[in-house]
C-alpha cells in the first residue's frame, strides 16, 4: 500500500489561512490502513484546525467526508454536492487523490494534508517499511522475494557492495544489507545457483525514464 504521513498542522493551517469554509476529504484506501488519512484522522484534523482558528478569532467552518477511494473518479462524484460554498478542499489522500480532486474541482483550491512517502507495509502495528521501488519490471523471482531495487541503498543488482558489513548496510546499523538477505534466503532455499545465472541489463524503460506511466486493460474498458 501507499504509506503517507500527515504534514504538521501548522503547515496545513497556513495553506488555508484565508479560507472561511473548508471541505476535508479522507480516503478509505491505503491512508486509512496506515492511519494517516482515514475517517478518524480527517475528523481529528478538522477539529484541530477549528480549534486553532477559534483561538485566532478567525472561526473556520468545516465539512468532512471520507471517500471509498480518492483515486477513482466514481468515488469522488459524491463530493459534487459538498463543494458548494467551500473556499478550499483539504485532501487527506496520497498525492494521487489530491490530483484527482484538483482535476474534478477545477475552480477549487485543493491542498494536500499528507506527505506521500513510499510503497510498503507494516512490520508491527505503527511501523511501516518501504518494500517496493515501483521499477515496473519485477525481479523478486530471482532474488528470493527480497527487492534489491528499494531495499539495497544503491539498488545494486549483482550482489553486495563493499559497504556490506556483518549483514548491515553502511548507511546505518539499523538497515539490513538486502544482498545479504538475498544470499541467506537463496541459500536456505537451496537455490544459490540461481544467483549465478547471467542476466541481461535491467530494462529501465519500464521504470520512470519515459515520463508518467500508464497501464491499460482493454478487456475491462467500458465503451
Amino acid at each position, binding site marked *: 500500500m501507499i504509506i503517507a504521513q500527515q504534514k504538521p*498542522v501548522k503547515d496545513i493551517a497556513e495553506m488555508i489561512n484565508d479560507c472561511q469554509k473548508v471541505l476535508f476529504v479522507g480516503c478509505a484506501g491505503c491512508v486509512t490502513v496506515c492511519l494517516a488519512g482515514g475517517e*478518524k484522522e480527517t475528523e481529528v484534523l478538522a477539529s484541530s484546525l*477549528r480549534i486553532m482558528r*477559534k483561538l485566532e478569532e478567525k472561526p*473556520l467552518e*468545516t465539512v468532512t467526508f471520507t471517500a471509498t477511494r480518492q483515486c477513482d473518479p466514481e468515488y469522488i462524484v459524491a463530493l459534487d454536492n459538498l463543494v458548494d460554498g467551500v473556499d478550499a478542499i483539504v485532501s487527506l489522500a496520497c498525492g494521487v487523490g489530491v490530483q484527482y480532486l484538483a482535476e474534478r474541482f477545477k475552480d477549487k483550491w485543493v491542498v494536500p494534508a499528507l506527505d506521500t512517502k513510499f510503497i510498503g507495509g507494516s512490520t508491527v502495528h505503527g511501523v511501516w517499511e518501504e518494500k517496493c521501488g515501483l521499477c515496473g519490471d519485477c525481479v523478486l523471482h530471482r532474488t528470493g522475494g527480497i527487492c534489491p531495487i528499494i531495499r539495497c541503498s544503491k539498488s545494486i543488482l549483482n550482489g553486495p557492495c563493499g559497504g556490506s558489513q556483518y549483514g548491515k548496510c553502511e548507511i546505518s546499523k539499523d538497515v539490513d544489507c538486502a544482498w545479504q538477505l538475498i544470499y541467506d534466503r537463496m541459500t536456505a532455499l537451496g537455490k544459490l545457483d540461481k544467483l549465478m545465472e547471467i542476466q541481461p541489463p535491467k530494462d529501465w524503460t519500464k521504470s520512470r525514464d519515459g515520463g508518467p506511466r500508464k497501464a491499460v486493460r482493454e478487456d475491462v474498458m467500458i465503451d
Partner: protein
Amino acid sequence: MPCSGTIDHRVIMHAFEDGADGVFVAGCMEGDCHFLKGNIRAKKRVQHVKQILDEIGFGGERLGFYNLSAAQGQRFAEIVKEMTEKILQLGPNPLAKSAGKEGGAA
C-alpha cells in the same frame, strides 16, 4: 464510556471544542485491564491528543490520564481535586467564550 480502551481522539477534541475547561480519562490500574491492554492503549492515545493540543496552541495540560480502580473512591476524590486545582490555575477554556462547533461531519 465504560472502558478507557474505547477512548477516541475525537471525543476528547469535541469536549474541548464544546467548552470543557479540562478533561481527564480514568483507566483501570495497569495490569488489571479485562481486555489486557485497553488502559495502556488509552494512555498512549491520550498522550497523542496532548501532543496535538500542544501543536495547535490550545495546550495539552488541560488533558490528563489517571489509573485507578472502581474501589478507590478516595483516590478518585484526590484526582478530581488535583485536576480541578490545575484547571483553576489555567483558567477557563479559551474557546468557551464562543463555544459550539463551526461545522460537522457531512
